[in-house]
């Protein structure tokens, strides 16, 4: 069983949802990213999503755009991100890591080599924002060969008919983009989630994570009452900018406590 499947299976037994915090690699430097990865894993992160900086992050709002720019200024490269994962894995072999990014740096590295190198470094899954189902055959065979989960985005605009098409070839979990918009802007309401999540559930047994606009412990708790995981990104980057890495880890603890406070049927 993959690390990701293992975590969700264990949480199902425990009767709770997952917290997936986000770290933009090298924002503002490599050491901070490593501190955040370790601190998050020790303070209630069930899975961690690592952003791979890209010059033109079209699906991201101002917060993650700025984080990516700082990462690139600090010298982030694709190899640098994989080395960061390798170093984290020396001490932690259990927390699943999912890389999120855009296709071009992966193409530039070579898709086959990237999947091999990522798996070797200890990456568990990939979220490639600008790779819709229609183009996924570029990556799927190599990801499968290297046992990397390809996590698909589902949006409010994804029709029921299209849902089946997008879910074919998905693994790990489903990333539900809960709003039509870029990251870190609006927030989906409990009513939105109560309407949208069951629609996806009828089509898949994979766990459903909700991201884009989940900021506070209350919102994270609302999310896991409906879905299987809450992804928090922009709010943590804001904290890192205004305060420091310790404050981010404090926020992760608070988010984790809120998520753990919601009991779910096993």
């Amino acid at each position, binding site marked *: 069983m993959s690390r990701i499947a293992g975590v969700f299976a264990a949480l199902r037994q425990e009767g709770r949802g997952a917290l997936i915090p986000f770290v933009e690699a090298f924002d503002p430097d490599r050491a901070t990213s490593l501190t955040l990865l370790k601190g998050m894993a020790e303070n209630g992160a069930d899975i961690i999503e690592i952003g791979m900086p890209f*010059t*033109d992050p079209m699906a991201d709002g101002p917060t993650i755009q700025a984080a990516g720019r700082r990462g690139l200024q600090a010298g982030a490269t694709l190899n640098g991100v994989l080395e960061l994962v390798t170093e984290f894995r020396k001490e932690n072999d259990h927390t699943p890591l999912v890389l999120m990014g855009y296709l071009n*740096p992966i193409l530039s590295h070579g898709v086959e080599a990237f999947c091999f190198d990522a798996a070797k470094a200890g990456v568990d899954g990939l979220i490639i924002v600008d790779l819709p189902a229609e183009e996924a055959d570029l990556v799927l065979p190599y990801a499968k060969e290297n046992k990397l989960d390809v996590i698909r985005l589902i949006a409010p605009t994804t029709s029921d008919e*299209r849902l089946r098409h997008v879910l074919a070839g998905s693994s790990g979990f489903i990333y539900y983009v809960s709003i039509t918009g870029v990251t870190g802007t609006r927030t989906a309401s409990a009513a939105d989630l109560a309407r949208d999540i069951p629609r996806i559930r009828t089509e898949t047994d994979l766990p459903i994570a909700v991201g884009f606009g989940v900021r506070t412990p209350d919102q994270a708790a609302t999310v896991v009452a409906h879905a299987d995981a809450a992804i928090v990104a922009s709010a943590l980057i804001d904290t890192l900018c205004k305060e420091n890495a310790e404050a981010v880890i404090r926020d992760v603890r608070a988010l984790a406590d809120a998520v753990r406070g919601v009991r779910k049927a096993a």
Partner: protein
Amino acid sequence: MNDLTPNSLRAWPDARGRFGEHGGRFVAETLMPLILELETAYNEAKANPAFQAELDYYLKHYVGRPSPLWHAKRLSQHLGGAKIYFKREELNHTGAHKINNCIGQILLAKRMGKTRIIAETGAGQHGVATATVCALFGLPCTVYMGATDVERQKPNVFRMKLLGAEVVAVKSGAATLKDAMNDALRDWVANVRDTFYIIGTAAGPHPYPAMVRDFQCIIGNEAREQLMEAEGRLPDVAIAAVGGGSNAIGLFHPFLDEPSVKLIGIEAAGKGLDTNEHAASLNRGRPGVLHGNRTYLLQDDDGQILEAHSISAGLDYPGIGPEHSWLHDIKRVEYAGVTDDEALAAFQLCSKLEGIIPALESAHAIAHVLKIAPQMGKGEIILLNLSGRGDKDIFSVANYLGTEL
């Protein structure tokens, strides 16, 4: 129209929106359903005589088509070689070829029931053309423009505002066309249900490259007919500037299956192809994915996109339309570079000899004609797409020439 044989170069893209290995649909899932809906709507409209009739009506009575074909006698004499013809797209309403596409897309937006229009712009020509058709059809319009371009294209910014559009100055990156397109795509993701994105160049996710090309093919179709009337034959060379490449593909496409017609696209070589300041994605880039399509891009070894440079805001883009990338791969079109300095010289020469102030974009193509026309025989014909007028550029040209206005 030509008959399309199975081997026609005019039959692309394929069902996946690919031109060879270029093109495709590399967008976030939120946009994907809309891209598919757009493709269906466009295919229906294209086959619908009523849509074509409506398009023809606006192109004739509002845009002022057909645009003339001008024999540039004094420039031809001055160069002492080939006979040079200008396809006068700068005489279209709003002063450039951009409106051909905007009329087509806004008619499509109306058919699809969209109530709000967004666009990106570099030089401001596409922004002005979009703001114009939005005024004509009474739709609200938001134009994304890099803050650098807002500064160097002030007249067009003011025009857009007069036409009722909201102009958003984009400050990210180098604050030019690439960044404007990023923010337009972000707006679209956030307002996908009611908003139609009028992309101004033959790039972006399928079906945009094919759709924009189709709307711009009127340039080459008219020029072909006009040249047959004037000279009784096809040109030896057809030449146009390429940024994203919409005016060039519009000129070239109707000639793709004519092997006797040499096609030349001119990239902005900025301060020189061997400097780091140019916009020559075909001559100095390699294939990658940006803004929804796979195409040649200026990028570093790690796949990060590099900033382009050109004196011309309309060419200042690190990518190019995917069909051009394919035409480059199969060597059907030759892509050459022209520097800022060469374009400036051509800008001035054309103004003095022909009484036509060309857009800096078009001046790049003219600069290449200055190089090749003297090498050609007097019986040979060059067809150049004069894609836009240069009024918008007089401030930046004055600045480069050290003249205070």
